[in-house]
């Protein structure tokens, strides 16, 4: 490392490795969530505390099921990209890499679980 010049250290890194793709992804998903989140609150909110039959009957309808599904998928992709920046800001070296992998895995596992659960209720 001591023999590298500043130019060599920066070469091939791009802008923080990903350029503007990350920024653009956050912008697009945030606009989508701006529509989804209020609808999600008004669809899921009243159902919390209801009994099992009411909940399963409600989410076997296409609109509530699709809104819940989309909000979890887009929301967790948005979370994955957001938490990556959080980790990049506060962790360095190997810890940074491991934390990003762990949180990416958690995000995708949560997405898969949400799809499975809502599909099973709806179908």
């Amino acid at each position, binding site marked *: *490392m*001591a*023999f*590298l*010049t*500043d*130019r060599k*250290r920066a070469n091939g890194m791009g802008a923080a490795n990903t350029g503007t793709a990350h920024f653009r992804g956050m*912008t697009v998903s*945030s*606009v989508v*969530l*701006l529509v989804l*989140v*209020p609808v999600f*609150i*008004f669809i*899921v*909110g*009243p159902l*919390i*505390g209801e009994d*099992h039959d009411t*909940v*399963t009957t409600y*989410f076997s309808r296409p609109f509530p099921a699709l809104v*819940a599904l989309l909000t*979890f998928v887009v*929301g*967790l992709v948005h*979370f994955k990209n*957001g*938490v990556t920046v*959080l980790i990049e800001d506060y962790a360095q070296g190997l810890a940074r890499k491991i934390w990003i992998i762990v949180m990416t895995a*958690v995000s995708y596992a*949560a997405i898969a*679980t*949400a799809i*499975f*659960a*809502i599909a*099973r*209720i709806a179908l």
Partner: protein
Amino acid sequence: MADAKQPNRPLSPHLTIYRPQMTSISSIFVRITGNALLASTLLLIWWFLAAATSASAFESANYVITSWPGDMVMILSLWALWYHTLGGVRHLIWDTGRGLELVAAERMGWVMIIGSLVLTALTIFCF
């Protein structure tokens, strides 16, 4: 030629020596709320999974989510969701090059704080 050794500069931001300001505090809370929302998201996914599994599994998930610690998590998350949403709107406004002046940025910070509290109260009142 460039210095071969990397200078040992202090890391930014210097959180400990900054006086709290509307811009910095409203911004850090966007980050905190956004990342903390993972907790209630996982709680809700568990609730959905339990509903998909069986009536008895749903019973336990429903018990946890409607217990008073569960209620606290859901109400705090509701506020966090509204606050983070308004914070996102501020970012979208900033992205167009508008509202970057100190006065405008601070005013939007107040809109985020008061707006999120009002929206949270309205949401709870509606249900």
